[in-house]
């Protein structure tokens, strides 16, 4: 049994297969692991993928790109309007829903965004099937965190229309975390992870909390104005300027020439992520004149430096929003094709100097891999259906801390039970007390809301009549919290077996 994860992005779609315990991205019929989410309508056929993207130069009016932008949106939606302005393919208003108008020679065909998405999904299904050699229907599909119910439904319908049986729709950032298996080893501990996704047209930064193996989105920021396309655009403008400089011809007014330049710039951009320089060559770009130009990585970074800065900006804002410092982030996950750009990676690394950037999986494949892993988890479940209330869980509201003294005798607080832990839960810690003492006091505090510093004392546990000894007293502390939040703490001194327990009720 196998299951697949599908990432359907604004510019590209990608599919990964979960089989034999591991998830892998599969290449499509063109040999690419990522398929451009471009659909071209010809007289008799619909083309999906790289062929459609390259054919766009000649068939721009009948080629649909970035369909995800209007998927499941009403015609008046500002996002849809924005897409409308950019789209080369005419979009009409039909019952307040956007529809593509495809020119099929003598007749005009009205195509809904869902149908376009369906074609893309169908292509992904074919890709997975040809790689597996067997039919496959079970799939997990990723959606952006900001997607509304309408858009999710539209996406689900498109996927089901393509023959998928959708196991679950999961958010892209959590898929990215899952791909790296963050927090999956043990169901304890709490950490914060930043997911940085820079795709073709959009930037999404998400701060997530991983607690007890479960993910929670703390804050997210999406910017549709920044993306890989912007870098390509900048490079293409530069190339056009170069062309003008050498041939005294302005090609910016010629859409076909610009499109050719764009394609060339795109290739050059990809190359520059790995090589120091790249050669842009366009045959008969304008008026039968060929164009040839060398672009170095430094040049490209210079061209895009303002864009890069803009791309990094949201991270800081977001951290401030959730009240975390860069040191609270334990991991940064990079995803999206543009996250390959070395300069960007370096800039992020500068922001989080002590943190490892996770980019071992190719950034544009992280999300489908995570989706495929989730598909593997869900596979064979009797019911993977999820109702709304099952994704809301009771969690611990405050940190539970214990007051200790460090070597110098100053007070330090150690977290025994972090806030946000899904309940019910139990945590066990071994605390130490100096062996010379015959009685030990544990003071339990809970943190104040939104601010950790002024603590509120909850309870104290005293262990008396301990036998003084050379080594430290080991005190096993078991902290249990029920769903309503009531706390039970048991302390046992290992040496003598003396124990004390206390139960703290919930404030009404």
């Amino acid at each position: 049994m196998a299951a697949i994860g599908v990432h359907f992005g604004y510019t590209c779609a990608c599919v990964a297969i979960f089989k034999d315990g591991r998830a892998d991205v599969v290449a499509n019929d063109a040999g690419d692991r990522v398929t451009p989410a471009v659909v071209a309508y010809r007289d008799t056929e619909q083309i999906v993928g790289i062929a459609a993207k390259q054919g766009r130069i000649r068939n721009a009016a009948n080629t649909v790109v970035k369909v995800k932008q209007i998927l499941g949106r009403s015609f008046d939606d500002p996002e849809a309007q924005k897409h409308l302005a950019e789209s080369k393919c005419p979009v009409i208003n039909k019952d307040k829903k956007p529809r593509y108008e495809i020119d099929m020679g003598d007749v005009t065909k009205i195509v809904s965004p869902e149908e376009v998405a369906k074609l893309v999904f169908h292509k992904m299904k074919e890709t997975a099937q040809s790689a597996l050699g067997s039919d496959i229907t079970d799939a997990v599909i990723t959606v952006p965190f900001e997607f509304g119910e309408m858009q999710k439904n539209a996406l689900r319908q498109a996927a089901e229309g393509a023959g998928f049986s959708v196991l679950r729709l999961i958010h892209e950032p959590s898929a990215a975390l899952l791909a790296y298996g963050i927090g999956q080893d043990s169901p304890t501990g709490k950490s914060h992870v930043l997911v940085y996704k820079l795709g073709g047209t959009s930037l999404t930064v998400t701060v997530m909390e991983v607690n007890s193996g479960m993910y929670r989105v703390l804050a997210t920021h999406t910017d549709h104005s920044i993306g890989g396309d912007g870098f390509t655009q900048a490079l293409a403008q530069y190339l056009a300027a170069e062309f003008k400089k050498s041939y005294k011809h302005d090609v910016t007014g010629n859409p076909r020439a610009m499109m050719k330049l764009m394609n060339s710039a795109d290739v050059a951009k990809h190359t520059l992520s790995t090589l120091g320089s790249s050669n842009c060559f366009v045959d008969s770009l304008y008026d039968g004149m060929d164009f040839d130009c060398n672009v170095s990585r430094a040049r490209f970074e210079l061209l895009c430096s303002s864009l890069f800065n803009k791309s990094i900006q949201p991270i800081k804002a977001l951290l401030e929003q959730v009240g975390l410092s860069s040191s609270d982030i334990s991991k940064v996950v990079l995803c999206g094709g543009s996250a390959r750009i070395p300069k960007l990676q370096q800039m992020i690394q500068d922001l989080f100097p002590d943190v490892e950037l996770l980019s071992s999986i190719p950034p544009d494949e992280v999300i489908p891999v995570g989706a495929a892993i989730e598909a593997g988890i869900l596979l064979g479940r009797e019911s993977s259906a999820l109702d709304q209330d099952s994704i809301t869980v009771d969690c611990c509201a405050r940190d539970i801390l214990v007051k200790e003294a460090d070597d110098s005798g100053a007070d330090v607080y150690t977290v025994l039970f972090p806030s946000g832990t899904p309940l019910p839960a139990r945590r066990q810690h071994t605390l130490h007390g100096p062996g010379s003492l015959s009685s030990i006091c544990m003071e339990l505090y809970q943190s104040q809301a939104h601010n950790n510093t002024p603590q509120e004392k909850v309870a104290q546990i005293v262990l008396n009549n301990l036998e003084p000894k050379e080594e430290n007293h080991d005190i096993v502390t078991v902290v249990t919290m029920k769903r309503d939040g009531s706390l039970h703490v048991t302390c046992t001194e290992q040496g003598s077996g003396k124990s004390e327990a206390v139960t703290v009720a919930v404030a009404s």
Partner: protein
Amino acid sequence: MLKEAVEGQVTVVCNAIAASVQFQVEPVGRWFEAFLKRRDRNVSASFQELEEEEELSEESEDEELQLEEYGMLKTLDPKDWKNQDHYAVLGLAHMRYKATQKQIKAAHKAMVLKHHPDKRKAAGEQIVEGDNDYFTCITKAIEILSDPVKRRAFDSVDPTFDNAVPSKAEGKENFFEVFSPVFERNSRWTSKKHVPKLGTMDSTFEEVDTFYSFWYNFDSWREFSYLDEEEKEKAECRDERRWIEKQNRASRAQRKKEEMNRIRTLVDTAYSCDPRIKKFKEDEKARKESEKKAKAEAKRREQEEKERARQAELEAARLAKEKEEEEAKQAAQQAKKEKEIQKKAIKKERQKLRTTCKNWNYFADSEAESVKMMEEVEKLCDRLELVSLQSLNEMLSSGTKEEGKAAVQQVNAQLQKEREAEVQARQASRSSEQASSGSGGGSKGWNEEELQLLIKAVNLFPAGTNARWEVIANYMNLHSTSGIKRNAKDVINKAKNLQKLDPHQKDEINKKAFEKFKKEHAAVPPTVDNAVPSERFEVSGAEANAAWTTEEQKLLEQALKTFPVNTPERWEKIAAVVPGRTKKDCMKRYKELVEMVKAKKAAQEQVAAKSKK
């Protein structure tokens, strides 16, 4: 490092904790799935662990068990291990079958520590060499008790177990005191958990019912392999082993049966003594009786109701009838009265007529005439209705003598005419009746076809045939299409009728037959109609057959006999012998004859069968 407790600090809760909050989590990952599963089942991994821990601690407490000294231990003979009390040997005489495996192990350990030969030797005790030391008994005991199967076998024949079943007399007096401990005791053999208690006098019917159904279906694990007389392991060869096994099985089964009987007796005794059962039975009986009574009451009431209704109905009917009768009586009286009045009126009128006539001297001149007229007037008086009499009288009284005479005569003439007409009508009806009856008797639905059939039959069965008319009737019944059954009498009548008919009529019948035939057949091929008729006429005509004279017939029969079936060119030869007949004719005649004979035979057979019946 934890801090030292300040003097006077105690474990205390000083503040309530914040309640839990709800967060939306991402539905991904195995821990999320595990969490969902736990939540669906309402268990938590951590609490489960806690429970297990509690169990563990309980068990550890058990280990501090009290061992009873077994005074006779040192005097035990290891060879007689089978009859020793293994629990007592291990010092568990007070726990017996309730001892856990852990306790047994602990007890054994304690015993070994105390009684091991090496230890005793060190203490300077005298040790019996080999297996004869009493320590072997301890080894044996642990061997039996540590093996669940062997332990069960030993438990089954626990020497301290009281197999006694209380008698009925004992049970009747104080049932609960006597039986409660017995059932308690026996319940240790059950392989099911949750043994229902005997209960008290106040137990509900359901409780008592569950109790007895449990004990009547008692599933015991008690078995008697421990009492096996021979040990399988001692056998030297397979056959011996088999034989031993067989023996053991038989004795075990026997003992098991006894045990089952014992339990059964116990339950039966208890059941019969149980005051609650008696009470329930009485209750049931009372309930049934009251139910029955209620039913009977209801029935009786219903019956009464019915009876009452019937009575009322009868009464109503009677009343209605009486009323009707009364009415009828009254009507009859009325009618009688009217009739009398009418009679009187008629009498009066007649008298009047007579007097008028007399007054007129009967409109006659002579004596004789007057007598005649008198007669006529009398006749009139007899015959005329009231109304006509009245009119006549009026006419007579108003008119002259002549007119009166004329009127009387006119009326008389009219009467005469009427009577004549009546007579005529009666005659006509009579004659018509006769005619219809005559024709009906003669041709009870004889139609053309049947007539033809009859003629044919008569021809077919000439005079002298055995029971000729019955045969003919049968033949008719067989072949007629009308479906009317004829008997011999009918047929005879008709045949005689036909004979009476003149030849002209016969011809007509024949002709009609032909015409009908033609009509029937003409419908089929209208085009060939012109060409075919002559031939058909010949074929269909009975004349062709009739042409065979008696002589010719005889010749033919002779020829048929002289030339048997296998004669070559038989029919040519036959034809040659019969003068004036072709080969074709002969063959046709022969076929007809054969057919005739066949039909005759069939009809005769039928008659014979009928007569037999």
